[in-house]
């Protein structure tokens, strides 16, 4: 077939060469003002949820110290792996905001620097300092402490959440709503983080502690009798803790008033309030007789060990972020319990913050030792399997054996 493509070709060529030019120019302008002499730029990776919170603080610091803070929106899903890939080549950001349990892996990769908080360390809550300390050194400037608790729809259940699991489920069923209780699960992969408080109420833990109070990878305790007891209990609640209640399903059920109780963290509060739900935050009921203790997760800032702006990064974190003023300001915008004690005390006047603080008053930090990498996935899968009917005792002991084998192998 014969066509007259000349004009189309010409236009195409024009458009593409213009595009090339555009991409070339803008490409070069992207290329970091950081390495040019005038003005220091700190690149900070932040997950989308917290970007807005940090913006004002970052601008203020820029004004004070003449250091530009470039906040980069990163998906929490990919941030951890992206940093691990980019940092060794010297390409990563100067600072990354993330969870404290990444420390172990990052230290093993040699991609984060210890941070000297000096006397300031005593101004933070014990649990926060505990969480960010690894091998006797602090690797993170903590900003917030998070733990999960029970979000209760006070219009459906006006009374405080009962102290035991059975009573809570009974109260939930009494509302006649679609779900008596919701908690995030990831299908067959479970979600051990969210289920852990219930596990801890059986006295079960993952690792024992060494004499310094740090997790001891040589002492795997998940498979002991308490763990098995928890597994057997888990086998009986598959109708309530459903695998396909994913994060958004759980959220929607609560927002729609279809679930009176939601086991979740402070990150869910705002949306629920925006949706007009009247809520209260309560401690997590016990399933196994003992106190239900959630994991404490600390959010904070790491410094890339290959950062060319180490002084600026340290100054920003230690002399700016780690101050009462900024921790309070960050709380006011983000609504998460500050890691600094003085700011946390001020924050406790907020009933939801206080609720979470109560729910987590004995929370222990999530383990950050590298051995944890061998735990999370099989742990979740085992729980998922038990919830969908696998034999609890056999599955749980196999889990313990598998984890031990994996730990031994990666040594």
């Amino acid at each position, binding site marked *: 077939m014969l066509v007259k493509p000349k004009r189309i070709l010409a236009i195409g060529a024009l458009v593409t060469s213009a595009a090339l030019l555009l991409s070339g120019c803008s490409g070069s302008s992207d290329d970091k003002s950081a390495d040019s*002499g005038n003005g*220091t730029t700190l690149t900070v990776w932040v997950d989308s949820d917290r970007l807005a919170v940090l913006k004002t603080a970052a601008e203020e610091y820029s004004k004070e*110290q*003449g*250091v530009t803070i470039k906040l980069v929106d990163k998906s929490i899903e990919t941030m951890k*792996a992206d940093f*691990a*890939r980019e940092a*060794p080549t010297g390409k990563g950001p100067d600072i990354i905001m993330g969870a404290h349990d990444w420390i172990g*892996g990052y*230290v*093993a*990769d*040699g*991609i984060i*620097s*210890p*941070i*000297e908080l*000096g*006397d300031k360390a005593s101004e933070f809550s014990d649990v926060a300092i505990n969480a960010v300390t690894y091998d*006797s*050194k602090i690797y993170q400037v903590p900003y917030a402490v998070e733990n999960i608790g029970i979000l209760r729809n006070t219009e459906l259940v006006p009374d405080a959440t009962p102290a035991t699991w059975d009573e809570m489920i009974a109260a939930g069923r009494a509302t006649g709503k679609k779900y008596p209780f919701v908690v995030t699960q990831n*299908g*067959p*992969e479970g979600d051990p983080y969210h289920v852990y408080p219930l596990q801890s109420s059986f006295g079960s833990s993952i690792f024992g502690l060494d004499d310094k109070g740090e997790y001891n990878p040589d002492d795997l305790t998940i498979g002991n009798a308490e763990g098995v007891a928890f597994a057997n209990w888990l086998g009986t609640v598959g109708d309530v803790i459903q*695998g*396909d*209640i994913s994060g958004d*399903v759980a959220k*929607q059920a609560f927002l729609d008033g279809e679930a009176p109780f939601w086991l979740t963290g402070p990150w869910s509060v705002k949306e629920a309030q925006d949706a007009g739900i009247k809520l209260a935050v309560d401690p997590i009921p016990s399933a196994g007789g003992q106190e239900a203790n959630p994991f404490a997760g600390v959010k904070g800032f790491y410094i890339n*060990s290959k950062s*060319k*702006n*180490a*002084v*600026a990064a*340290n*100054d920003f974190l*230690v*002399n700016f972020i780690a101050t009462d003023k900024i921790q309070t300001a960050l709380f006011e915008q983000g609504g998460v319990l500050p890691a600094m004690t003085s700011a946390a005390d001020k924050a406790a006047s907020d009933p939801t913050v206080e609720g979470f603080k109560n729910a987590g008053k004995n929370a222990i930090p999530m383990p950050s030792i*590298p051995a*944890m*990498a*061998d735990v*999370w*996935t099989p742990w979740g*899968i085992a729980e998922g*399997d038990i919830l969908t009917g696998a034999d609890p005792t056999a599955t749980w002991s196999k889990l313990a054996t*598998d984890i031990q084998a*994996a730990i031994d192998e*990666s*040594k």
Partner: protein
Amino acid sequence: MSGRVNVRIGPFITKLILLGMFDALAVYAIFLSIQASNWIFVTVIAVIAVAFNWIYLRPGANPSKYLAPGFVFLLIFQVFVIGYTGYISFTNFGGGHTGDKDQAIASLIAGGQERVEDSPSYPITVVKAGGTFGFLVTDDGEALFGTATDPLHEAPKAVMEGGVAVSLPGYESLNFQDILNNQKAISDLAVPFSDDINDGTLRTQDGRTGYLYLSHLSYDADADTITDGRTGTVYHDGGKGSFVSESGDNLKPGWTVTVGFENFTKALTDPTIRGPLVQVTIWTFVLAFVTVFATFFMGLFLAIVFNKPHMRGRKIYRTLLIVPYAFPAFLGALVWSGMFNRSYGFVNEVLFFGADIPWLTDPILAKFVVIFINLWLGFPYMFLVTMGALQSIPAEVEEAATVDGASPWQIFRLIKLPLLLVSVAPLLIASFAFNFNNFNVIYMTTGGGPKIEGAGSNIGHTDILISMVYKIAFDGQTRDYGLASVLAILIFIIVTIITIISFRQTKALEEIN
């Protein structure tokens, strides 16, 4: 286009101009590479530049003139990259082994710096004289001064301001901007606390406050060992990319070394890899084959249905049918996965009246869903291709057969289908290879799940080889680039063999001769 002379001179001038621009760029690039002392780049760019000049300055038609531009990109971004992946497969590159040995040592020594317990924090002022940096330290209201080579000593001449030493005659006190301009030098600066090295060194992280550090790890370059001063343990290079003690303890981080066929052995013997690998390989073949088969016959069926001249609305149907092809595939896959959501998806809620079918989390159903989505993504292409192929079969063939008394079905089965297959076979093979590596569909729908029991790195029932590689490299908690590269190479070999065999079979390549 005027005159014949232009025909020769015009292109020649164009050629010269283009080549000149290219050479100018090349020279500039070489200049930049020399500045960065990157001799590999210098060589590569020089070779390419010389080759291009040689190729394009020769007169006459020459295949290399037409092949060169594409081949440069191909060589660098495809061939080299494959080769490099091959190299990675023989290393322990991955989590804990990401850099070279020097980096690992530097990192270990830095990590070995420990603040002396109960030591105070010292307000400091960074000062500079003739390129040498020093710390002006305030200790209990007294000024001390020292540099990297000059241990801390009293500095009575220092100017105090509010109880803190702020400057020293003969030295320039650095403000924050000056400090920022010398960040590396200042964070590396270690001022001995006294003449005795065992008293430790003073360092600063933020340029304002100094702390006293003692290192408990020391590197002995001659013996190539690291010694832990606290315990006296000696760690030596264990040959596997890390320092190891007598009792087998590894220091982390390590560094990247070649490990021979270790990764290959692991892929084939480690039960957490081998088991899933077999299962995943089978499923990859099944998925690719069923997808090609299903999309082809659906496309063919539709092509026959709409291969009817004068049918009203034929164009509209055709336009509707190719919509999935024009819709970005990753979006299509994501949307379908939303519709198959167990609790809120359209399929369960509306089509199955609120049923609770675990489409994406049941091992068998999830496979069906993946194939179903693949069918949606793939049939329009086959529809277009087979329709063209059908139309190109001469009408006389059919007429002659009809005259000979063949039934329509016979005509289709014995004449049209074979003719069709011959012409579309290469495309079917290409489609097979494409679906063999159709990462997006898996990643955006099931994410490979549900997980296979006992598998490492979260490998699932709907994972295909390529998504398995991705998980081993990125998704797992331990990033094992070496192992991932082994599987990448294996996939490459499998697909290559299949392609060669099937092309032989269809004799598609015979025409090339």
